[in-house]
C-alpha cells in the first residue's frame, strides 16, 4: 500500500494560510479606509483639517491597492510583508487616535478600527504571532491613551472604559485565532484522509 495520503506539506499549508488569509486582512483594511475617508469628508470643517487628516487614509489606500493588486494577479506577498503591512495598520490607527483633531486618546471614536484589524490578523497567523500582534495593539492603544493624558488612573469610569476596550481587543485576537486553529485541524484531517474523515466522506456520499 503506497503512502499516498499527504496532499500538502506543512510549508504549503502555511503558505496557503497566508494566501487565503490575505484577502481577509485586505477586506478589513478596506473597511478601515472606507470608514476613515467617509469620516474625514463628513467631519472636516475647513480645508486645513481635510488636508491634515486625509493623507493617513491615502497612504493606507495605496498600500492596500498594491497588496490587493498582487493578490488578484495571483502573486500575493509573503508572510513578512503581510505582517509588516498589518503592523503599519496598527501604527496608523494609533496615530489617528493620538493626532485626530478634536478628540484624542480615550475620547477618540476611531479605536473601533482596532477590532477588525486584530480579528483579521488572528485568522491568518499562528498563535504566537497573533498573540504578539494583539499585545502590540493593546500596548499601542493603552500607550496612546496615556500619552494623551485621557486616562486618569484613578480606577474611575475612564479606567474602566479603557480596560473594557482592551479586553475586547484581546477577545478579537483570541477568538479569531481559536477559530483559525479549529479550521487548521479540520483541514489537516481532510487532507490526511484519516479514519474519521473517511467515515465522514462515506457518510456524506451515502446522502
Amino acid at each position, binding site marked *: *500500500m*503506497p503512502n*499516498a*495520503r499527504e*496532499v*500538502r506539506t506543512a510549508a*504549503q499549508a502555511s*503558505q*496557503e494560510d*497566508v*494566501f487565503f*488569509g490575505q484577502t*481577509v486582512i485586505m*477586506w*478589513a483594511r478596506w*473597511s*478601515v479606509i472606507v*470608514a476613515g475617508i*467617509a*469620516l474625514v469628508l463628513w467631519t472636516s470643517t475647513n480645508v486645513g483639517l481635510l488636508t491634515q487628516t486625509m493623507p493617513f487614509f491615502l497612504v493606507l489606500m495605496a498600500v492596500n491597492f498594491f497588496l490587493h493588486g498582487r493578490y488578484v494577479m495571483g502573486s*500575493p506577498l*509573503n508572510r513578512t510583508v503581510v505582517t509588516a503591512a498589518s503592523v503599519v495598520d496598527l501604527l496608523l490607527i494609533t496615530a489617528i487616535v493620538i493626532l485626530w483633531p478634536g478628540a484624542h486618546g480615550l475620547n477618540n*471614536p476611531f479605536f*473601533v*478600527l482596532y*477590532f*477588525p484589524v486584530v*480579528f483579521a490578523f488572528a485568522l491568518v497567523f499562528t498563535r504566537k504571532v497573533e498573540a504578539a500582534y494583539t499585545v502590540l495593539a493593546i500596548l499601542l492603544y493603552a500607550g496612546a491613551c496615556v500619552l494623551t493624558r485621557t486616562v486618569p488612573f484613578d*480606577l*474611575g469610569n475612564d479606567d*474602566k*472604559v479603557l*480596560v*473594557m*476596550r482592551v*479586553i475586547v481587543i484581546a*477577545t*478579537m485576537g483570541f*477568538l*479569531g485565532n*481559536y*477559530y483559525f486553529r*479549529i479550521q487548521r485541524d*479540520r*483541514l489537516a484531517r*481532510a*487532507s490526511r*484522509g*484519516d*479514519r474519521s*474523515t*473517511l467515515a*465522514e*466522506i*462515506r*457518510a*456524506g*456520499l*451515502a*446522502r
Partner: protein
Amino acid sequence: MSTTRWNQPKDHLVSPDGKWYWDGIAQEWKPVTNAAPPPRTAAVPTPTAKPQPVRGLSSFAGTIRSEDLAYGQTVLVWARWILIGTGLLLSFWTPQDLLTLQVQLAAIIALAFGNFYLHVQLLRGRPALDNVIYAASLADIGVVTALVIVLGGFSSPVFIFYFAAIVGISVAFPTLMTAGYTALVLGIYVVICLATAPAADGPAIFLRLLTIAAVAVCGNLFARHEAQRRTDAVRIHQELLDEIEQGASSQHNTAPAMPAPQE
C-alpha cells in the same frame, strides 16, 4: 468513482491468527468480521442509507452548514464566556445605581446559565441543535442591547460587546444567517443611537456600524474560504483513492490544493 474491488482480504496484510487485517488508509489493525472487509471507499452508497446527523461530508462542502455550526459553536461559547466574565467584572467596577446593577447581574447570570448548558453539551460531544444556537445568539444580542440601553444608549461604552457576539456569529453561521444577525444588530443599534445621540455624533455612529459590519464580513469570508479549502482537500484525496483503486502508479502522491504563492 471506480468500483474496482481491489481490497479483498487477500489484498490485505492479515495477522497470524487471521482475526485482524491491516487497513492501510486508517493505518491501523481492524477485526476481520466477515468474509471481506468493508469496502474502503463506499463507492456504492445506498439510497436508503440514513444520513449522519452531524459531521458528514457537508462539513467539507463549499458552503457553511450545520456541521460548521457545531465547530463554530465552541467559538460562540467562548465568546459568551468572555462577555459574561467581562460583564461581571465591569458591573462591580463603580456601579451606577442599584437598579442598573440588578438588571446587569440578572442578564449576565441568565446568560451564564445558558452558556453553561451549551458548554456541557459540547464537552459531552453533543453540540446543541441549530435552533438552540441561533436562539442563544439572539440572547447574546438581547443582553448586550439591554446593557447598552440601561447604560445610556449611544454614550454607553458596552456597545463594543456587539463585536464579540458578531465574531462568533460570523464564523459559525451560514452567510445569510450572518447577514441577518448583523443587520439585526445594526438595526437595533442605529435605532438606539438615533434616539439617544446628539446630531453631531453621526460620524461616530457610522464608524461603529461600519466596523461591526466589517468584522462580520471578515469572519464569514474566512469561514467560506476554509470550507472551500476542505472541499478541495477532500476532492484531491478522493481522486487519489480512485487512482489507487484503478491500479495507477504511485508517482503522483502529492498534489497541491492550489498554486503556491510565488513569494
